[in-house]
């Protein structure tokens, strides 16, 4: 659940705010060439339109019956196409709010989210409220409204807070667009880009944090580059606040730049491991140093990802 329309500013889960949510315009402030200026205005207009479409998180939109009705499809895709394997679900506290922190893979077609959603709903039942923070563009993109019925809500600290306040389990991907478009050869690398918003959230609300480590998603295409330099060269970061312009080789496009329309993911085996919960204040004291906690969380996730990577014998086949 990501989008290549990324901005530099991380929200609670590291997903960026959409371009139009930024105040003012970088191009206006620094002055832009005329050709770029008109393109920039068009971009800002588009971004504004998208921003107006960003749905305010209404937790009631998640529909347990809809989730239940779609479990068979999720099961088919997860079991047959991705040969999904989810371990350690019993580490998730049986009741109450919990912040599930995952590493993000697979470009704009993130298979690990679907595999995990099925596993969570199967294990705890669709009755337990479960939300996933998704990029604003994902939940506002025409035709993807169904994701909101499955529990996707627009990524923002306020929405995350609302979900946890309601006692729900919330899945966040701090690495967001930065991590999800990393090159395939960095598949076994946690890349949160020092985004620590999720830690503040867990501390403020005093909820347990449960790391969820997945591997395989980055083998669903050959991801070549985040395209950060390309995005800067085309001034997309200034016009659209696009920090990345991912480049990959994927079906059906072959050379896929931007991944704006998604791609057909290759059937890579997805393995997910849920780690024991971390109670931040119990383990790090009443006012922990966020950098220390960040280093600890990413280190345990990286260790697990290393172990999962060492289990894999062949790309895609797992």
């Amino acid at each position, binding site marked *: 659940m990501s989008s290549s329309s990324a901005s530099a500013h991380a929200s609670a889960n590291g997903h960026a705010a959409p371009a139009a949510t930024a105040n003012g315009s970088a191009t206006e402030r620094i002055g832009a060439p005329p050709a770029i200026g008109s393109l920039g205005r068009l971009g800002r207009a588009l971004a504004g339109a998208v921003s107006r479409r960003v749905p305010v998180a209404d937790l009631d939109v998640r529909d347990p019956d809809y989730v239940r009705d779609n*479990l068979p499809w999720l099961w088919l895709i997860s*079991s047959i196409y991705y040969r999904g394997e989810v371990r350690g679900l019993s580490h998730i506290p049986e009741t109450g709010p919990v912040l599930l922190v995952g590493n993000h893979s697979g470009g704009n077609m993130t298979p690990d989210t679907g595999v995990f959603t099925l*596993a969570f709903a199967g294990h705890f039942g669709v009755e337990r409220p479960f939300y996933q923070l998704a990029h604003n563009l994902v939940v506002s993109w025409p035709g993807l409204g169904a994701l909101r019925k499955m529990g996707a809500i627009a990524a923002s600290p306020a929405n995350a807070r609302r979900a946890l306040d309601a006692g729900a389990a919330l899945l966040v991907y701090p690495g967001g667009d930065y991590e999800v478009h990393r090159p395939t050869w960095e598949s076994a690398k946690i890349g949160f880009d020092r985004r620590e918003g999720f830690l503040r959230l867990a501390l403020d609300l005093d909820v347990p944090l449960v790391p969820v480590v997945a591997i395989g998603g980055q083998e669903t295409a050959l991801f070549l580059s985040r395209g950060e330099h390309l995005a800067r060269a085309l001034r997309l970061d200034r016009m659209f606040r696009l920090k990345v312009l991912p480049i990959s080789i994927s079906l059906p496009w072959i050379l896929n730049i931007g991944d704006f329309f998604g791609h057909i993911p290759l059937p890579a085996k997805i393995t997910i491991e849920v780690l024991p919960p971390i109670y931040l204040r119990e383990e790090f004291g009443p006012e922990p140093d966020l950098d220390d906690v960040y280093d600890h969380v990413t280190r345990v996730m990286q260790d697990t990802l290393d172990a999962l990577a060492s289990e894999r014998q062949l790309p895609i086949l797992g």
Partner: protein
Amino acid sequence: MRIAEHVDVSAPPEAVWRLVSDPTRTLEFMVGVTRWEVLSELERGLGARYRILNLVGSAELGGVVEVVEYDEARDLAWTSVTGLDWRGRWRVRERPHGRSRVEMRLAYGVAGAGIGGWIAEHVAAPTVRANVRRTLQQLKRIVEQEQLRRLAAERRASRQIA
């Protein structure tokens, strides 16, 4: 989807019943079941509730079930209260020469899931059927071993009395 398999066991129905009606022993013989947790105060009998999880494909599926039929040493049936729609039944019948026929029936599905549900039910069927068969074989082994031990203990006891 409905699956029914049976096995003949060299032990009387009461010996089979001791095993199938004991929720603390379910994980010993039910293949694919990863959890069978008692939720109600009533551990066994009509109205007892359990939280059950079955590993099928990539996910543990299940939910809360309730015992809806409990006919001592004959029938034990349960149906789902939450989660996946499913019903199960142990049917134990006496056969000649101190033997029993044990039948396990499972019916499962997702009502209202449409074509996706139909496909998933059929794709999962071979796995579920294989699990049921292995469950019955496991049950047969355990019950027959326990029956042999019980008979041997009775023989020892009778010799000591004599």
